[in-house]
């Protein structure tokens, strides 16, 4: 029976319309995975020796303290990135397949997911160090590992369940952020309460039973709920929620652009996939913490500040902009046969990115805590984002011809799109140019000269807005038929 499933999967991969680009992407993802593996293994050695030599603490105890964050962060990443175990179920339903088999295959696939295996690259070297260097008992280390594996797999199935609910993950992420903040500022330390549990996994042999029980319960629940869902009017149905017509008339002040702006706002509000760009931009808001807190030494260089600030203010711009016009792929023939001026269409997307960048900049004022200097970097980066990056992102997007399935939020990252040499080349001025500009100013004169250079580049970018829009328009025109054809190719 499984033979058939594997056969179907095999064919669906090799016969997919976008194979060539997806193969490239697979290779790219391969490198990315390799990088992560190396980082994980390196991290485990680094963490062990750093904690032992520099902090003079027991690595096991310290790691146990932070494991709760590890586990929750794992869940968040899974929610954002891990693909759901979807096989093309509908045609199989009426065939003589046992439903349990269908679900087991779908679940079985997730067991081998990279998201589960990657943890091993940290914990296995770390455990070996614990035994060899730390002199801990091998049995205890093994039990600790079993407990952790159970937790990781519990996350795997929890994610399957969570994915059915829409906004639960924001709650989880919010709680994580709050506890993280409370701990950082020293008000409340949740790890005090969770660390004994993880330590218990190590010290007390029977503790390992708890995560295993949790895992078993989660497997059973998700198995049952999936089997129940194997009906066209249950899990396989597309959910239709009751909705209200919105007019968003306050946007009419933007003139002709408002027509599209209204649509784009609805696009973001009403589609899972588009909403996840907002999630990404919120995540990027916190990205700066890695840099400005001095948490990671290599990021302490002054040039990195600009790098971080570009992401902090430009999360939405980068994640949304790179897929213009793919966001409209599902109704592109309409757009192409309607009475539409490309300029108005583009400037709507542009305004959206500008507004989002401004909001991010205001929200990022929390970074004032780290000093005026840091916030200045953020403001300067915002100017650069608005003045230069917003145009470049749209320009690069014009070459992306991957249809977007708005209703599913998976594949939001990486997966095959946005990857061709042209977009890669265009990413240079997005990321590298501001760093170079800043470095020139910083090392030749002073940090402020660096900021000024980046800001001036940003302001100068405005001058090219019309030019770039003309260029994009001509790309849209010349690539029109190809784009229409490409958008027709459903995965």
């Amino acid at each position: 029976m499984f033979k058939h499933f594997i056969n179907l999967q095999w064919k669906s991969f090799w016969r997919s319309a976008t194979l060539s680009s997806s193969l490239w992407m697979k290779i790219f993802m391969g490198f990315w995975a390799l990088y992560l593996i190396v980082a994980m293994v390196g991290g485990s050695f680094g963490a062990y020796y750093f904690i032992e030599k520099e902090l003079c603490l027991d690595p096991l105890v310290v790691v146990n303290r932070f494991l709760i964050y590890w586990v929750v962060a794992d869940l968040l990443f899974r929610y954002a990135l891990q693909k759901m175990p979807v096989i093309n179920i509908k045609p199989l339903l009426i065939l003589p397949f046992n439903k349990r088999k269908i679900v087991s295959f779908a679940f079985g696939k997730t067991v081998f997911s990279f998201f589960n295996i990657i943890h091993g690259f940290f914990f296995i070297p770390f455990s070996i160090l614990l035994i060899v260097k730390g002199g801990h008992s091998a049995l205890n280390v093994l039990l600790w590992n079993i407990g952790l594996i159970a937790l990781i797999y519990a996350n795997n199935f929890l994610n399957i369940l969570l994915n059915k609910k829409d906004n639960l993950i924001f709650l989880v992420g919010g709680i994580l952020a709050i506890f993280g903040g409370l701990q950082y500022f020293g008000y409340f330390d949740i790890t005090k309460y969770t660390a004994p549990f993880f330590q218990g996994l190590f010290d007390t042999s029977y503790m390992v039973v708890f995560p295993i029980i949790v895992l078993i319960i989660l497997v059973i629940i998700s198995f049952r709920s999936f089997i129940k869902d194997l009906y066209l009017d249950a899990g396989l149905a597309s959910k239709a929620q009751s909705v209200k017509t919105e007019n968003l008339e306050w946007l009419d002040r933007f003139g002709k652009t408002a027509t599209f702006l209204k649509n784009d706002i609805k696009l973001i509000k009403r589609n899972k996939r588009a909403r996840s760009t907002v999630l990404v931009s919120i995540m990027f808001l916190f990205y700066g913490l890695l840099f400005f807190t001095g948490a990671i030494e290599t990021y302490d260089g002054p040039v990195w500040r600009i790098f971080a600030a570009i992401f902090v203010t430009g999360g939405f711009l980068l994640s949304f902009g790179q897929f213009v016009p793919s966001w409209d792929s599902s109704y592109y023939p309409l757009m192409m046969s309607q009475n539409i001026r490309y300029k108005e269409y583009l400037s709507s997307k542009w305004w959206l990115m500008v507004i989002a960048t401004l909001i991010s900049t205001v929200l990022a004022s929390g970074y004032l805590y780290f000093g005026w200097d840091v916030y200045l970097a953020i403001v300067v980066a915002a100017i650069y984002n608005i003045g230069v990056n917003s145009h470049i992102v749209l320009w690069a997007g014009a070459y992306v011809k991957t249809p977007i399935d708005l209703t599913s939020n998976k594949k939001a990252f990486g997966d095959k799109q946005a990857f061709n040499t042209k977009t890669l080349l265009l990413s240079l001025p997005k990321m590298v140019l501001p760093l170079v500009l800043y470095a020139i100013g910083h090392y030749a004169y002073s940090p402020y000269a660096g900021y000024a250079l980046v800001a001036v580049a940003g302001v100068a970018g405005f001058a090219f807005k019309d030019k770039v829009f003309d260029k994009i328009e001509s790309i849209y025109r010349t690539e029109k038929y190809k784009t229409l054809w490409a958008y027709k190719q459903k995965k």
Partner: protein
Amino acid sequence: MIAVHNLTKTYSGNTVLNIDNLEIHKGNSFGLVGNNGAGKTTLFSSILDLIKPTTGHIENKGIKVNESEDWKTITSAFIDETFLIGYLTAEEYFYFIGELRGQNKADVDALLSGFEDFFHGEILGQKKYLRDLSKGNQKKAGIVAALIGKPEVIVLDEPFANLDPTTQIRLKKIIKDLAADPEVTVLVSSHDLMHVTEVCERIVVLDKGEVVKDIATSEATLKELEEHFNK
């Protein structure tokens, strides 16, 4: 109104459309019939400049569709669900199309009020996104959206498919009314020979991309078409 010149479309050596010359006159109601793969949708898509012909060109009111975009102001179409914006409600969609075609909300509302029968209470005020409507209701919304803004050329691909019998009858009336307007040219394709003979003044039969019949509709037309397809 529409003039097709030496149009061919070839996909990897396989010619799917080959029309030397075809003129559709202003105010005409034009029907296109043919079996699957005859090239109906390809022809309509070429008229809308959605696919690039291998040779030849199409003029819409004297405008070459692949050179200028001015024909877009006078032309509207509903080919398939890719002409719908799935995450909008029907009203939002109508207003959006209205704004694109220079119609304000009141204009659109006035137009919509004429289609209450046709909508049968299943389109407006539904609290549903278009993507959650049934195929038939999506089609109703798409067809009516194609009538917004007084277009001079209306292209409808298989408008009768997926509609329930009552709606089919109402749609026939709508198309006949449009056809009666000397300013409006309607292009319709269908697999239903009866419907198409009833609403169109002229019927063209496509077979493997070529025009094999070009008939001015009369009493005998239905029979003639049935004989043709029963070969």
